[in-house]
């Protein structure tokens, strides 16, 4: 088996693995990780095709190689944006669940004072107050 074919098949398996991770893992961060696997698989497939195009004394077709560099940088930017979204979601809701209905929170509502206070907006007010008192922020959520 030649090198490009081998890595092409490797890329196919990587895409499959990533897809499985994206579907089955409930944690958004792990989904981002698995999505990166899919992206890497696609890049590797493209790289195998570039290697097949070796000619004119080059080790591979330089056009796909150039596009790959662009692709890797853009994939990194997208990952950074996705993680920023996730962290903001966590800061806002205290959870990163993607489930549409949140049974765990709904059931605990009448028992857990923290969740009830969160719902009533009491915590937001407390946060705002403690900020004005301490003059700090960003860390107030840890105090609660």
């Amino acid at each position, binding site marked *: 088996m030649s090198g490009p074919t081998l890595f092409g098949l490797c890329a196919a398996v990587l895409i499959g693995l990533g897809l499985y991770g994206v579907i*089955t893992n409930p944690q958004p961060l792990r989904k981002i990780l698995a999505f*990166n696997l899919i992206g890497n698989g696609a890049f590797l497939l493209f790289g195998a095709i570039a290697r097949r*195009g070796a000619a004119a004394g080059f080790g591979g077709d330089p056009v796909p190689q*150039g596009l790959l560099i662009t692709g890797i940088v853009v994939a990194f930017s997208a990952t950074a944006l996705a993680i920023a979204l996730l962290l903001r979601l966590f800061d806002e809701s205290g959870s990163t669940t993607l489930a549409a209905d949140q049974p765990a929170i709904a059931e605990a509502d009448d028992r857990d004072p923290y969740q009830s206070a969160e719902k009533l907006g009491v915590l937001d007010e407390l946060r705002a107050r403690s900020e004005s008192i301490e003059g700090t922020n960003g860390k107030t959520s840890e105090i609660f």
Partner: protein
Amino acid sequence: MTVTSALAMVLALILLAIAAYTVAARRTFAAIEGFVAYGLLLSIAWVALSSIDVALTEAAIGSGLTGVLLIGAAARLRTTEAALSAERPGAPLRWLAAAASAAVAGGIAVAVLSLPDPAPTLAPAAAEHLASTGLGNPVTAVLIAYRALDTLLESIVVVFALIGVWSLTPDRTWGGRPGPEHAADPNGILAYLARLLPPIGITVGLYIFWVGADLPGGKFQGATILAAMWLLVMMAGLTDAPPISRTWLRILLVAGPLLFIAIGFAGALTAGAVLAYPEGYAKLLIKVIEAALMPTLTLTLALLVAGASERTAPP
């Protein structure tokens, strides 16, 4: 030849094993540690595919910056992990997902095995026009001459991604410093590393940027290494990320793409087409564009890792 293909085989198997681990690992931290090792091995795979330029990019971005980005996020989301693993789908759904994923992988594998022979290639065309750019590295020629529009749009996309990250800043910390504050231990081993490594790293980054015209390397790889050095100094607490409201920062962030656009449109007057370079000045202009993109890319990549602003700006 047989030794080479055996080597490639071992490499591919290790890559797949570690990729499977990052999907299957129970703890997020363990998965990310696997992913960092995976990025290291992937850059060896790129060398095996004779794509040294891509290998350099992967080495710097794949395991370096992406790793640090994921680790930071995992550390902050650690408390959510236990609750979320309860939402894991049941066995039937997992089997269904496995079957679907296997079908997709199988389809791609069939496509790989039935790729046309001989393979279509643009390499001869790239080689033919290489002399007119004055460059020795065909990948750099693709990036900044033949397909300059892609690179221009990419440098803008990266800045847009940073604007997207910044726009996720809560109102109360708008304009402040990005990311959490890093504790400094001026006599610790980390501070020692952060003092010793950056001078070497900056030299290597500039070297990789400079040789990019003729050998594998270039602005993306160089800028990523510089960004990593800056982040290292930040993580050691020896310096802090600048508040995102600073004017100098914003000017530097748009300066590179703006100069690229200006030279591109000047090409319409001097060379007859947008993003074309006048005869004899191609290499000079390419180096000017790359040099202008360097600070923009370095700042953008580092600040993408640093994240949205979380602390109020100093007065």
